[in-house]
C-alpha cells in the first residue's frame, strides 16, 4: 500500500459539476487507468481517496489536491501520466508525488484556510478606493449574515468577521477583484458566498450573483505541514 497526492486545476464548463460528481469521476478514472486503489474494510467498502477540500459547484480552482492509496507501489510519474491521459476536459493534472510519510491525518483534516479570487463586474458602477472599501468592511464591529444550517430549514445568524483572515480589493477596468483568505476546514469554515453577500450591499453594488465568478487559488494547510 502506498499513498500519493496529485495536484490539479478545474476550469471551464466542468466547474458546473459538483464535488460528488468529480469524486465519482476520479474513482472511475482510476479504474479506467488500471490503477487499483486500496479499499476500506467493512460491509460497504469504498476506495481510499479524497480531496483536500470540497469545491463548491460553479467555482474554478487553480491548486486542488486529491490524495489516494494504491494497492501496490507505483512510480508517481506513471500515475500522473495515466490519469492525465484520460482525464475529462477542464481538469488539468499538474503532478503526482508520494504523500509525505510524516502525515497521518487526511489532507482535509489538515486544511485551515483557503485563498479565493472573486471577480465582480461593475457594469458602470464605480468603486473609488477598493482597498479602503475592504478595510472599512472589515472595520465593522460585527459582520452579521444568515447561514444555512445542516439538516435544518431555518437559517442562523452568524458573525463572520473572525473567520476572514485577509481581504485585498482592487479594481481594473469594469471589474472589482476581491481576494480573500478565509477559514476553511473542519474547525472553522467560511464560504466566500457569505462574504460576497455582505460586501455587495455594504459597498452599495447591485451586481447579480450570476455575473460573479469565484476561483479558489490555494488551499492552506496548518502551519509547517509539507504534503
Amino acid at each position, binding site marked *: 500500500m502506498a499513498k500519493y497526492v496529485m495536484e490539479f486545476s478545474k476550469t471551464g464548463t466542468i466547474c*458546473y459539476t459538483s464535488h460528488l460528481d468529480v469524486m465519482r*469521476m476520479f474513482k*472511475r478514472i482510476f479504474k*479506467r487507468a488500471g490503477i487499483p486503489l486500496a479499499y476500506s474494510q467493512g460491509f460497504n467498502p469504498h476506495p481510499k481517496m479524497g480531496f483536500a477540500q470540497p469545491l463548491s459547484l*460553479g467555482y474554478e480552482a487553480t491548486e486542488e489536491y486529491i490524495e489516494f492509496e494504491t494497492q501496490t507501489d507505483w512510480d508517481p510519474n506513471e500515475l500522473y501520466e495515466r490519469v492525465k491521459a484520460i482525464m475529462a*476536459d477542464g481538469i488539468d493534472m499538474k503532478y503526482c508525488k508520494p504523500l509525505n510519510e510524516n502525515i497521518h491525518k487526511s489532507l482535509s483534516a489538515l486544511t485551515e484556510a483557503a485563498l479565493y479570487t472573486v471577480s465582480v463586474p461593475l457594469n458602470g458602477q464605480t468603486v473609488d478606493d477598493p482597498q479602503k472599501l475592504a478595510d472599512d468592511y472589515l472595520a465593522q464591529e460585527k459582520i452579521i449574515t444568515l447561514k444555512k444550517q445542516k439538516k435544518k430549514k431555518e437559517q442562523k445568524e452568524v458573525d463572520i468577521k473572525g473567520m476572514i483572515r485577509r481581504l485585498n480589493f482592487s479594481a481594473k477596468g469594469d471589474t472589482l477583484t476581491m481576494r480573500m483568505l478565509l477559514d476553511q476546514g473542519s474547525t472553522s469554515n467560511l464560504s466566500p458566498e457569505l462574504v460576497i453577500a455582505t460586501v455587495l450591499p455594504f459597498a452599495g453594488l447591485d451586481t447579480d450573483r450570476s*455575473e460573479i465568478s469565484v476561483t479558489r487559488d490555494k488551499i492552506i494547510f496548518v502551519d509547517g505541514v509539507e504534503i
Partner: protein
Amino acid sequence: MVIDKQLDKILKKVEKPARYIGGEVNSVKKDLKDVKVRVGFAFPDMYEIGMSYMGLQILYNILNKTEGVYCERVFAPATDMEDIMRAEGRELFTLETFTPVKEMDILGFTLQYEMSFTNILNMLDLGAIPVKSADRGEEYPVIVAGGPCAYNPEPLAHFIDMFMVGDGEELFPQIALLKAECSTKQEFLQRCAELDGIYVPSFYDVTYNEDGTIKEYVKLYDKAPDRVKRAVIQSLDDAEFPTENIVPFIDTVHDRCVVETFRGCTRGCRFCQAGMIYRPVRERKPETIKGIVKEQLANTGHDELSLLSLSTSDYSRFEDLAMELMGMCKAQNVALSLPSLRLDSFSFKVLDEIQGYRKSGLTFAPEAGSQRLRDIINKNITEENIYSAVEQAIELGWETIKLYFMDGLPGETYEDLEGIAQIAKNIIDINFKIRGRKGGRFRVTVSVSNFVPKAHTPFQWAAQDRPEVLKEKHNFLSERLRMKGVTFNYHETATSNLEAIIARGDRRVGDMIYRAWQLGCKFDAWTEHHKNELWQQAMEETGATLDFYAYRERSYDEILPWEIIDPRIERSFFERENEKAKAGETTHDCRLGCVGCGMNKHVKCFHGADESRLQKIGKEVSSG
C-alpha cells in the same frame, strides 16, 4: 470547452447545471470541417432519463462512427432552465458544441412513451423551429422520429417530417448520408421513402367516414409504399454496439455498463407491444457479448454491469454466459445486475451469489390474478411457479417480494381481482410457515397498472375500462389488500386514459396534443407536472373523445390508423390471437415451434441462437 457569457450566467442560476454542459468522458468531439451532415439526437425528457436509455448510446455511437456525420445530443431542459432560456432568448442547443438545434441538418426525436409527446413540441419551439411540418421551410432541419411509439406515428404526423420505424442501426446512418446527397427537403424525403422503415406522413392524405373511422389513405406521392414495412436487421451479432459509452458526470437513473444480449421475444403475451414489434428473436453471440463487456468496463470505469433484453434468462446460452460474467465482474469489483430473471433454481444460485446479503426485492409479473385470465392474456406463469420460487427465496433470505399486475384487461371480472389479493395472502402465509409467527421484516408490494391497449398487438381492437370502472376496481383492491406486510400501489386512471387515446390515435389526435402543449402541458410523464384539467380542456376543444379513442372496441373491418405501418407480423395472426383470447385458449411459446406470426417470411427467426437449447428452455418455461 469554453462557453459564452450568456450561457455562463444562465448556468449559475439553474439547478444541476451539469445537465447542460456535455463534455462527459467518451462524448464525441469532431472537427466541423470534416462534417457533412449534422444530426441532433433529441430525447424528449430530462438528461438523467435520456442518458439512462441505451438506444441513445447505440445510435450516437453508430452515427458518430459514420464518416462525415456528427451526432450531438439534446435533452428537454428542466422547467427552471426553460424559464430562464425563454426570458433570456436563448435557443435550445446541443450538448456537444452548444449549437442551436435549428442549425442541425436532421433533428431526430426518440419516441419512448406517449407522455413525452408534448415535450417534443416544446423542444422544437424552444429551438425556434416552427412546430408544424407545414410551417417549416428549407432553412429548418428535417425533423425525424423513431422508437417504439413510431409504430403508431399518426398522432405526431403534423409535426414530424419523417418517421423511422424498426431497427435503427442500419437505417439511421443510411438516411444521414442520403441527406448530404440531396439538395432539397422534398428530394430527401422522396428518396428516403423508398427505404423500408421510412414513413413520410405528407405523402398520404387520410379521409374519414361519417362515424369518424378512417375511410382511406390516399397516396400523394406515387412511389411511397402502400404500407411502410418496418426496418429489420437480420444479424444482431453483426450490429455495432457501443463500447465507449458516455459516462455522465451527474447521477442518472441507470449509470452502468449495459450489453444487449438479444432482441425479440417468443412468449406472445397478447397485451405486450414490445413482445410483438421486436420480433423475431435475434441473439448476440456470447463471445461478442463478453468482448463488449470487457471493453465497456475498461472504457468507462463503471462498477455495475447489466444485461438488456426483454427477458434475461431466455437467452439460449444464459447459464454459461451468466457464470462467465459473474467471474469477470467479481475479478473487477463490478456489481452484476440481471433484470427480469425467470426464477428457477439456477437463477437463485446466481442471484444469491451476486446479491449476497444485500438482497434487493424479487420481482414477479403474473399480470393477472387467475389462471383463467392469465390464459386469456397468454401469460405463461402459474401460481405454483410463483409459490415454489417464493419459498426458495424466503429460505435464501429475501425479504421483499414485488408483484406486478394489470387491471382492466379484456374479460376481467372481480374474481380475477380477488385472485390478486389471494396471491398476496398466500405469499404472506408462506413466509409465516417458514419463518414462524413473527415473520420478520417480510414485505409484499403489489403494483397494479391499468391496461392500455396498444397498436400492433392482439388486443389492439380492445376497449379500455372507463375511469369510474377502474376507480371501483382500485377501491376493491385497496380494500382486499389491506393486510399486514402488504403495500398496494396503482396508477392514475386519467393518465392511462390519455395514454390510450394517443397510443391508438389518428392524425386528429395531433390537434389535441398541439392544443395541450399550447395550454402549457409538458413533462406529462412526471406526476408533479401532469395537468389533467388542461388535457381535458384540450380534448373538449379539439373533439378528441375518450369514447371514440379509448373506450370503443374496434371491429375487424375498421382501417386502424397504425396499419399504415406494416410490423411484418400478419394481421391474421393478431385476429387469430384475439379470438383465442376470447375463447380462453393459450398459444405456446414459439421456441417450441412456430405459431405463424408471419415474421419468418421476411427474416430468419432465432438468428445467432443455439437452437438445440431453445427447445429445451421453451419446454422448461412451458412446464414451469
